[in-house]
């Protein structure tokens, strides 16, 4: 029946990828402590207003919610460099629709830090006036940061929005997760309205050459390492 197991309350969990120790943060950010580098993927800012343009009036609070979580993660880890790993904006005009408050919040986060915008499929042509550097991908030591995963060793990517579902005794929990096999990783989407793709989808099997990888699942209070094969 139900176990009496104590729950590990861990805000971060160490993932070793291509020999580098990285801290997975409960918020969905990834932190390289030695480099004082923080990575977040798929912010999808202004996804709400993007739908509103097409008549689906989603609550216009997603950018504020996403940036508030990002601000908290940045405050926790005080990085020197922040990488936004692509699809930071939901569409090509999204940055222009960003409410003033969100724009200011973003500027405050950037202040005193290197900020690197990696281009994604939703935001392939990021304007130069965003502040920070715009790049297609970036390599730091043995790691390469790019939006769409290719499966290369040492690659940290996003794009797929991995989520894991674990079921037991007629109940299921579905959460965002990091997916990694120790050589490469796919990051969870960070955006408040970003949905997810099951890690059992064939897209993940292509990147990890099968199902021999781990899901580091973002729970309410801790990150849980669960074999992808255990998820459904």
């Amino acid at each position, binding site marked *: 029946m139900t176990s009496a197991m104590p*729950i590990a309350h861990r805000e971060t969990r160490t993932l070793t990828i291509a020999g580098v120790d990285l801290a997975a943060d409960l918020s969905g950010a990834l932190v390289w402590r030695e480099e004082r580098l923080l990575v977040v993927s798929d912010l999808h800012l202004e996804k709400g207003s993007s739908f509103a343009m097409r008549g689906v009036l989603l609550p216009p609070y997603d950018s504020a919610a996403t940036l508030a979580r990002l601000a908290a993660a940045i405050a926790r880890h005080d990085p020197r460099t922040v990488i936004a790993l692509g699809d930071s904006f939901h569409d090509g005009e999204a940055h222009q629709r960003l409410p003033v408050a969100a724009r200011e919040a973003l500027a405050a986060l950037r202040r005193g830090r290197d900020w690197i915008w990696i281009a994604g499929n939703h935001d392939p042509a990021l304007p130069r006036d965003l502040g920070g550097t715009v790049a297609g991908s970036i390599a730091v030591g043995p790691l390469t940061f790019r939006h769409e995963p290719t499966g290369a060793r040492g690659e940290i990517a996003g794009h797929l929005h991995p989520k894991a579902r674990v079921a037991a005794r007629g109940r299921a929990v579905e959460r965002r997760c990091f997916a990694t096999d120790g050589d490469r990783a796919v990051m969870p989407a960070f955006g408040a*309205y*970003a949905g997810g793709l099951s890690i059992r989808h064939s897209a993940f099997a292509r990147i990890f050459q099968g199902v021999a990888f781990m899901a580091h699942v973002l729970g309410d209070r801790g990150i849980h390492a669960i074999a992808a094969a255990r998820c459904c």
Partner: protein
Amino acid sequence: MSIVPPAASPDIALPDAFRRWFAARGWAPRAHQLALLETARAARATLLIAPTGAGKTLAGFLPTLTELAAARPRTASTGHDGAASGGLHTLYISPLKALAVDIARNLERPIAEMALPIRVETRTGDTPPSRRQRQRRYPPDILLTTPEQLALLLASDDAPYLFASLKRIVLDELHALVTSKRGDLLSLGLARLWRLAPQAVATGLSATVAEPDDLRRFLVPQRAGEVRLADLVMAAAGAAPIVEMLDTKERLPWAGHSARHALNEIYDLIKANRTTLVFVNTRSQAEMLFQELWRINDDALAIALHHGSLDVAQRRKVEDAMAAGRLNAVVCTSSLDLGIDWGDIDLVVNVGAPKGASRMMQRIGRANHRLDEPSRAVMVPANRFEVLECRAAIDAIAANAQDTPPLRTGALDVLAQHVLGCACGAPFLSDELFDEVRSAAPYASLARSDFDDVVEFVATGGYALKTYERFARIRRGKDGRWRVANPKVRQSYRLNVGTIVEEQMLKVRLVRARHGAQGGATGPIARGGRLLGQIEEYFIEALSAGDTFVFGGEVVRYEALANDEVYVSRAHDSDARVPSYMGGKFPLSTYLAERVRLLLADEAAWRGLPDQVRAWLSLQKKLSRIPRPRELMVEPFPRAAKHYLVTYPFEGRLAHQTLGMLLTRRLERMRARPLGFVANEYALAVWALGDMSLMIRQGRLDLDALFDPDMLGDDLEAWLAESALMKRTFRSCAIISGLIPRRFPGEDKSRRQMLFSTDLVYDVLRKHQADHVLLRAARADAATGLLDLRRLGDMLSRIHGRITHRALDKISPLAVPVMLEIGREAVYGEASDALLAEAAEELVKEAMALD
């Protein structure tokens, strides 16, 4: 005038042609049929309450037929466009399109036989566009349709023209329509009709209900400060039904809902009768019983299956075979609670809990549609508690007691849909529409601020952060009238009208089992197997690979979910491990629950119970205590290194689940270290690591505080933030209100994977605008829907200060049924993290085992 004495002279009421027609068929017009003619002549709205088989439908249409016959020369052809049309005369609305079609067929008979110049047409989702076009231009005299189609008609530009001539509105099965959001939608449609056609008079046809006045209010426009009622006509009651409880020779199970023990006895009942309807409460029970009956069907009786997940064509086939008298029995769910008349059903067998007295009477009414002969029914309880419930239901039926729910308060999400629909028709003024909406009984006490919030929501989302002005769906012009901002909005409204939110369904395919992959989900599976049907996504989501369940009459093993399809293989064990599709849809009615409590407490009444049950209750009395009607009894006891607390609120599974969630939160704070809970319709069992019995003794656990109604405050708030049931409730409000389209224009199929998840929208909205109108709508639903908060609140007030506890050193007889549910039903109360941590731990164990 409220009740019309059914003594009107037929000579006055009925024209000659009709009298001759009745006579030719050997019939005499019934008193209530004549009474309806009288109220119609006085142009008074009327509610007709009549049992099945009383000629209710004909009663509803007689005023229309006689009026049209009198207004037209009888020589006119009965034909189509040739008949001189005075425009639409009567609108008939039914909850089922099959029923509308059937009624149209039934009406053709008197019309043809009396050669009446009357044109009758149906309009349902299946009506081809060309016919719809024609109906708008050349309306029939009588149009038979559904609430959704009415909404669509009202949202068109021709609505004023189409309905200007309307005289009568007939609402069939009104008791069934008013209990859901479809009833809200219908009430708003009626309000619109009363504005477009002030002369139109409504007639409601209904089975017996607890509060006829609720339905009478529904049928007439309400005005602020006064309650207005339609006339009431009560038909003479039919012969009293003969209802028995199966006195099984077998051992009565302690728990479970399968009634397998009584299988042979059910089979014998089917064999002994010509045509039997076997009702069960859930689809999985229907599947299981159907399968088991066929296993012992040595006489090759024609036994069929009917439930809501079966393909429509399949269901129609069963219904046709039934109507043609080719079947011995149909195993069915509430999918057959309503519907077309089948004539000769000898017996209704109800397997499992009756849940409500009125519901049971309506089911029993499906047997034998001849008024003067008693319907016969046999109740088959599946466990010991259900014996009590069946006994209570039989007593309630004998007393002709009703427990239909009270009239709803109109939902705000349905109002939002209606407001958008209104803007799609002629532009409206807020003040006028507000008055119109308040004339609908469910919305009679709608606050102006709520109405304005809804209009604002429809326009720009109703957000405090006003950033969507430029994306507005409706706009107010210089004349102060609201109209749709562009034609796309209109198109989107048409695609999304209606209040029935379908569960997300997944295709189920049969593949070969994977070899050697026990429990784990490794290795490829063969793709593209035979399509078995469709199943609710939420059911599949809670399964693990290897779980077995019954689907389409056979036991299958869940293999995988891949690319939006469910892969299953044939299972060889005959026991499905996952038995339920979320239990029954209806909880035990408050009224029946009360009767069960009284029955328990009344030892003299135990004489009417089977020996086994009497022995069980006597033992409970000896070892613990029989709960008194107004108290809440709590039994703490230890078992296998855990500590249990079993309690008996008798408030239905939904309310118990909510209570369980809230209790475990409190127990956690009181440091009892709760682990989980399980609920059934009658009881709730919570278990913990802490010795709750000792805590009570030492005063560290105060039961009055534990069950204090204030749990519906902060604890509830905190839980609602993450409750999956609340998120499902919100999703349905978001869809009905039109925030999130079911379908986008230009897309044929509803897309399974919505481009965003409503759960995420819920989280964000809750944090940033907790009083948003859609969250208010969802909370109102939670009061009566999946969370049953209102009932829980009533219970907590009722038992406040009346908690008795019996500390036991082992499980009591009364606690056995709910304890047996553990491992059988989903276990709630575990934090998500606990489940995730457990899955992570499996990995550790696996690794250790390899060493």
